[in-house]
């Protein structure tokens, strides 16, 4: 569906994407995970055929965006990070007007709009103005709009950024249904839980390059331990770090990460590790044992957290 090799994007002297290789297969949910500024959105804009490729090869549905941008754009759906809904039109008109851009007959667009409003649970808001919708509803409307041409690939740039937890779950539910229906999803996110929930396969991006690739589970297995023991300590007031504490427990875990307010001990059995920590006379304010997540993978690969 999408093939990229050595793909690059630069703006003046700044290289946002520095040679990435990606292949997205039909029917899969593929994710770009990384912090803000990793090059995810630049990559998405190139895939959406609205931003010229600076270097390397990119094929979408077998076509080259440099020459077939309009053909590509007719067959993909785009859900941009910033809403581009027309706030002065009704919910329904937003869908109908947009559908007409694809050369679809008016009656057919109306029919599709009705189905899609139902799908994103906005039927009752059909005649409301977009201005009156909540953030979550707007995002669902944007998703509905991106489906009006029955796209072969749906691109979602940060689909739940800025939404409250409840609204995020509604969006995830709808996207999950699309995935079940066999729609190829490509999404960017800086939320590891979103990547874990929605994607079959993902690449972790940092500073314009891909640092890891695989399914969420494979990535965790390859780059982290089964469990993590989090030990919370007061943030040092003298400008120091928790390095001295980390040295005391270094031998209790496969790996120790030092954060300003806590130590992360990567280990197969978290409870056991916590017990041993207490035996050594260390007294964390709080302890937490959890399974490893993509956040830990990212921390391992880049030495930084996803959300700063």
């Amino acid at each position, binding site marked *: 569906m999408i093939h990229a090799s050595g793909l690059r994007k630069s703006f003046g002297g700044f290289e946002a994407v520095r040679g990435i290789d990606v292949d997205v297969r039909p029917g899969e949910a593929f994710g770009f995970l990384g912090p803000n500024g990793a090059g995810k959105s630049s990559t998405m804009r190139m895939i959406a055929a*609205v931003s010229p490729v600076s270097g390397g090869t990119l094929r979408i549905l077998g076509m080259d965006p440099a020459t077939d941008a309009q053909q590509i754009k007719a067959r993909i759906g*785009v859900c*941009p990070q910033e809403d*581009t809904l027309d706030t002065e039109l009704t919910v329904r008109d937003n869908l109908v007007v947009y559908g007409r*851009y*694809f050369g679809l007959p008016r009656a057919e667009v109306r029919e599709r709009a009705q189905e899609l409003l139902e799908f994103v649970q906005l039927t009752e808001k059909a005649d409301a103005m977009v201005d009156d919708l909540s953030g979550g509803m707007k995002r669902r409307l944007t998703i509905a709009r991106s489906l009006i*041409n029955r796209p072969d690939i749906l691109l979602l740039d940060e689909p739940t950024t800025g939404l409250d937890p409840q609204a995020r779950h509604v969006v995830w539910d709808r996207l999950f249904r699309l995935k079940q229906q066999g*729609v190829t999803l490509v999404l960017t996110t800086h939320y590891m839980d979103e990547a874990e929930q929605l994607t079959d396969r993902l690449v972790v991006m940092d500073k314009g390059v891909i640092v890891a690739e695989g399914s969420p589970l494979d990535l965790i297995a390859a780059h982290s331990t089964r469990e993590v023991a989090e030990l919370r300590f007061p943030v040092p007031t003298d400008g120091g770090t928790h390095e001295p504490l980390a040295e005391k427990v270094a031998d209790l875990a496969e790996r120790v990460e030092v954060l300003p307010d806590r130590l992360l001990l990567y280990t197969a059995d978290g409870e056991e590790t916590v017990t041993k920590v207490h035996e050594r006379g260390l007294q964390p304010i709080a302890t937490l044992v959890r399974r490893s997540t993509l956040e830990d993978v990212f921390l391992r690969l880049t030495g930084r957290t996803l959300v700063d």
Partner: protein
Amino acid sequence: MAHKHTQAETRTQTQATAPRGTIDGALRLLDYWATAYRRTWKGSVVSSFVTPLLYVLAMGVLLGGFVEADPDTLEGATSYLAFVVPGMIAAQSMTLVFGEVTYPVMGMIKWNRTYYAMTAGPLGVEHVILAHLGFVAFRVAVSAAVFLAVVAPFGVHEAWWGVLLAFPVQVLIGLAFAAPIYAFSAGLKSESAFSLVFRLGMIPLFLFSGAFFPVSNLDQPLESLAVITPLWHGVDLTRMLTLGTLELGPALVHVAYLGALVVLGWWWAQRRLQRRMVV
């Protein structure tokens, strides 16, 4: 969608397609502009009816009462009213356009990002420009038609054929301003320049391009300056037509001048919007 909508797909299976050409693409934007216009057309039609009436009464009838009705000093008009009406029609074609391709263009790029939605699908910058300028041309046509009709009872139209021709000329004047100003707006990062465009561009043009007095009243070099402004070409052409004093040579120069502005402005608009949006 495939599985859920199997039933629907058997009823409706048109494939989304890329536009077959610039006009086909622009026509796909018709519903957008029609939907947007449906919310505002009443207000705009009322104002395009009331505004000329007020101007004609104040400037043409009341102020014009102090002006000697001498065809020799009024470029062939038999009354100041007949002189000033074509000027005001042409000037209105210009001022309307200034409003339509400054803030709205910036808004659709920067504030509500409508252009990005339009080009996320199979349409490109060229379709967006043609549709937007097409809408502006439509707006100019409606307001010019209303203006020409409103002033008809005042007996200022000397030649019916000239009035019929004056109508498309207003669209030409409108586009001669619309295309280059659109181009300017399309590349602009901040709206603060617009107030200068209005104060130092539109208002001097409005006042000194021969709409309200013959440019020969200006001293040199101001007269020479006035006759190179696009509005003067529009005013003079419109006036020739409504007064029935058409001279083919000068008329063709006016049309060529205004037409060249449309073509150059359009080319520039394409370039500026492409650079702004496709990065």
